[in-house]
């Protein structure tokens, strides 16, 4: 009779740190460091800061444009800059990112043009960019489904001998879906080079985490799949970059998958259509404002003399220019051809689709005539 755990990993090695990994305290001073993660280079942190400024400005601009009716819907990620920018920076161009509807900042940081980032939310198309060219999957709405795609693709990359990894962005609520479970289990069994980053922003629309799970914290889900897990202060960009880079490198070097829970907060409502005052009080929001990831990194870099007023000014200017570009793009309506609706349903349109296309073409002519 074989003993059950023979040849299996040591459970303790899979559990996350008891408290979130943190390098920088809320006031920007060094935190008593937990875990043995390396602090990222100052240059990387400066770049992260620049992108956080850019990302937050972009987010504000998109929200404003939505109020003006230019977007169908917009889910803001202000407050989650450290998570999203770190996710983008931790990856190489050859790696794949799997974003959700929430992750516009990560897409911007990944270098995708703002117009392409907003195509989905503007209602012009289902995906504005060419996923294969930017190695970024379409923004995913059916919750947790992308975690399986990221796992399968990671295994495919590994099978092809490419030293590339995939990183899936997942919300705290989405961890309740069966697909999250199946993705982590497949990742564990196949040892796929995938990193699951759960942005635990405390809410799934209106539902707080304590109605979502009774777990000590979401990072404790990893051990059930034999997947190493970690929890991080998601508003500490230094910790996020440090832990994510380590996870990505580990996966890249055949160390297998990793689950990372980032404790963060969604400062704005779920989307422009949501009214957050219905389910959370202002005091809570203010408590989190005190933990603002950007000011925290700014103070940290200043204390290290790695960020000057001039830098901040130039980053701000760059962000303003970027916002102007975004406005420009959003204020020009793209020409959408209804007849393209029949393309790409199949590699070649079926007879039925050609018939329907011809009928629509006739309708359009009739209107013009």
């Amino acid at each position: 009779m074989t003993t059950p755990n023979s040849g299996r990993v040591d459970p303790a090695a899979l559990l996350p740190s008891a408290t979130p990994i943190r390098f920088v305290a809320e006031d920007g001073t060094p935190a008593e460091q937990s875990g043995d993660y390396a602090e990222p280079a100052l240059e990387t942190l400066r770049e992260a800061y620049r992108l956080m400024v850019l990302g937050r400005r972009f987010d504000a601009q998109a929200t404003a444009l939505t109020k003006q009716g230019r977007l169908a819907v917009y889910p803001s990620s202000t407050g989650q800059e450290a998570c999203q920018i770190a996710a983008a920076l931790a990856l190489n161009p050859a790696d794949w990112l799997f974003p959700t509807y929430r992750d516009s900042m990560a897409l911007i940081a990944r270098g995708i043009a703002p117009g392409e980032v907003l195509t989905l939310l503007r209602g012009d198309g289902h995906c504005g960019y060419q996923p294969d060219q930017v190695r970024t999957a379409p923004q995913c709405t059916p919750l947790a489904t992308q975690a399986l795609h990221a796992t399968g693709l990671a295994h495919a990359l590994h099978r092809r001998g490419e030293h590339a990894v995939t990183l899936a962005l997942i919300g705290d609520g989405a961890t309740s879906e069966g697909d999250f479970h199946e993705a982590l289990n497949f990742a564990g069994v196949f040892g796929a080079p995938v990193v699951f980053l759960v942005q635990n922003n405390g809410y799934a629309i209106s539902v707080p985490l304590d109605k979502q799970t009774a777990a000590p914290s979401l990072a404790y889900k990893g051990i059930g799949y034999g997947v190493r897990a970690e929890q991080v202060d998601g508003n500490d960009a230094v910790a996020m970059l440090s832990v994510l880079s380590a996870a990505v490198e580990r996966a890249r070097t055949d160390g297998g998958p990793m689950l990372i829970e980032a404790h963060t907060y969604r400062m704005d409502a779920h989307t422009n259509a949501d009214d957050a005052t219905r389910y959370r009080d202002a005091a809570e929001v203010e408590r989190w404002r005190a933990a603002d990831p950007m000011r925290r990194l700014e103070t940290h870099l200043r204390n290290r003399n790695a960020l000057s007023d001039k830098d901040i000014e130039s980053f701000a200017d760059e962000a303003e220019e970027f916002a102007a570009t975004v406005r420009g793009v959003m204020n020009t309506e793209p020409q959408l051809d209804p007849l393209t609706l029949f393309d790409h349903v199949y590699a070649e349109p079926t007879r039925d689709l050609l018939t329907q296309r011809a009928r629509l073409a006739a309708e359009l002519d009739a209107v013009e005539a």
Partner: protein
Amino acid sequence: MSPITMARALNAALRDALKDDEKVLVFGEDVGTLGGVFRVTDGLTADFGEDRCFDTPLAESGIVGFAVGMAMGGFRPVVEMQFDAFAYPAFEQITSHVAKLRNRTRGALSLPMVIRVPYAGGIGGVEHHCDSSEIYYTHTPGLRVLTPGTAQDAYDLLRDAIDSPDPVVFLEPKNRYWSTEDVSFARKGAPADRAVIRRPGRDVTLVAYGPMLGTALETAEAATAEGWDVEVVDLRSLAPFDEETVAESVCRTGRAVVVHEAAGFGGYGAEVVARLTERCFHHLHAPVLRVTGLDIPYPPPKLEQYQRPDVDRILDTIARLQWQDQPVVSGA
């Protein structure tokens, strides 16, 4: 009576059901404190307490499977799937359990539960928020499928659904949520499984339901200009299908067009056409035609207008009903 929206009528139906039967429970994603993304459950938790209306973890299969267990335990769960495409994770629970438990146990166990699904488009929703998924449910024996086209029916049919001893998939047309009407709470409406004639007419029968009822009625008005007197039948119950009422109308008018937003291929309209053709064959002056959504994934908001049947498409189709007995344009 003062005019209220369909969303409010649904809210009123839930309130009255919660009042009348303590076994009724409402749960799902964001239905509690928030009152649902469409505010259909607005205020229920505040007024009836966490015990009667509550939020669940974010997992649709979990919600439906948990509801099956609670129904086995004597409750009458009314669960919400936030949007049509987000009911798909619950497909196995709905198809293999909700639809079958009574049959599997020869009636020893029953599942008086309602699965509310906001469905179809017309509200500028992005992908996965606008599917017309009715056929997936109507083809599955054991499920009742109801869909209101008016605020009054929203109240009446939801009350009936909650009272039903059978599980009901309750499809709510998003594009009608904000349509307003005077609503009576006296429950004097037609039986839930009967279709109703919304507008009498002599020349042709328009068969519609839920999302397309409004468009069908508009078309009937517009058709008078063409000299066509159009009868509009609202199915209300998709499963079972009220063949008697619909066939009576079509055998009388001799012409029929079935309208729905769902993709045409293998869609609900095909069943209606097949039944009417068999039942009214010798009364038909022309084949029963369909006006449906295109056979493509639901388009992005800025193109959805081309996906959904509109007055012109329906009029064009009526025009093809061989008024001078010319042959049907094949494939058209």
